[in-house]
């Protein structure tokens, strides 16, 4: 579906098309900053810290990894933990796959490299609205990734100065973004129930101690319940 609604090229138009990336950038700068500061404090050199933000690009996993490095765990433990933490991206990748049918393999490879919770949230909204062009999706991801790396760099440079992001409420940028993305996914009763179930299950599983698995377990079960309800509704109507 064509998304070019204006005929006149202007400076604001390219920027406007990147607008979906803005909340993510706002969130990634402070969190990347926090990661950079913590990585420096844990004794990770500039090279490895930046490399991690460049090649891994996973906020929660990176923050956990820095903690584990500081605790002196082995590379293998850290890699295994990272795998578990990021496994939920498997689901996200699967759920976006229908929209990538027209994409070239290299575009799929490039896009999924930068698939995070936040870029997933942004694109699942856009793709559903019909904005499925690969180039813009890749560009949005790139901007988000750059913000993450930039935040990391700033954090590393700031080093010991742990500046407080709290007075500006910057630490709430990501939760607020998730709230917005979630609200926009609620397109009907079943979606609402799925979200409530997933939230509740996630909390339960987390409280039971499975702090790496709660998202996956909750999402798989809640979405299955939703799909089941929907199929059942279809069959009885």
């Amino acid at each position, binding site marked *: 579906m064509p998304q070019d609604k204006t005929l006149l090229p202007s400076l604001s138009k390219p920027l406007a098309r990147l607008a979906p990336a803005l909340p993510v950038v706002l969130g990634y700068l402070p969190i990347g900053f926090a990661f950079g500061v913590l990585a420096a404090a844990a004794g990770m050199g500039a090279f*490895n810290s930046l490399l991690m933000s460049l090649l891994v690009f996973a906020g929660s996993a990176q923050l956990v990894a820095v903690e584990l490095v500081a605790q002196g765990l082995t*590379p293998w433990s*850290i890699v295994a933990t990272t795998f578990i933490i990021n496994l939920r991206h498997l689901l996200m990748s699967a759920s976006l796959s229908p929209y990538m049918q027209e994409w070239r393999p290299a575009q799929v*490879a490039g896009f*999924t490299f930068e698939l995070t919770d936040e870029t997933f949230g942004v694109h699942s909204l856009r793709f559903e609205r019909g904005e499925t062009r690969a180039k813009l999706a890749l560009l949005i991801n790139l901007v988000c990734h750059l913000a993450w790396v930039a935040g990391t760099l700033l954090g590393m440079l700031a080093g010991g100065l742990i500046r407080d992001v709290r007075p500006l409420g910057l630490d709430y940028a990501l*939760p607020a973004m998730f709230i917005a993305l979630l*609200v926009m996914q609620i397109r009907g009763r079943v979606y609402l129930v799925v979200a409530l179930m997933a939230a509740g299950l*996630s909390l339960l599983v987390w409280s039971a101690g499975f702090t790496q698995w709660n998202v996956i377990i909750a999402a798989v079960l809640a979405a299955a319940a*939703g799909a089941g309800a929907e199929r059942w509704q279809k069959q009885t109507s």
Partner: protein
Amino acid sequence: MAETDLLITVLGMALVTYLPRLLPAWLLRGRALPPFITAWLRYIPAAVLAALLLPSLLVEGGRLNLTWDNLYLWAALPAALAAWKWKSLFGTVLVGMALVALARLLGW
């Protein structure tokens, strides 16, 4: 940890992170999937976002904060309302951040 060990760690992390992101999209993108699976995939975003969101609002420092002074939780309500009304990512983020900043300014 030694520099080379760190490098190995980073590269290992990159690999185990990229593969789950890549493979489903790579393998599934041309496929017509059974109706139950496509329905399931359609609910995954809402489910994943909700599953991520609730703990992030309630967990502070590794523990649940279910008390009345959980700022994140309180700010979530107006933020959700803003999202519902304006359907704007940026607007919601602004509202959320502004509320939190204001609350802290007032001594929360």
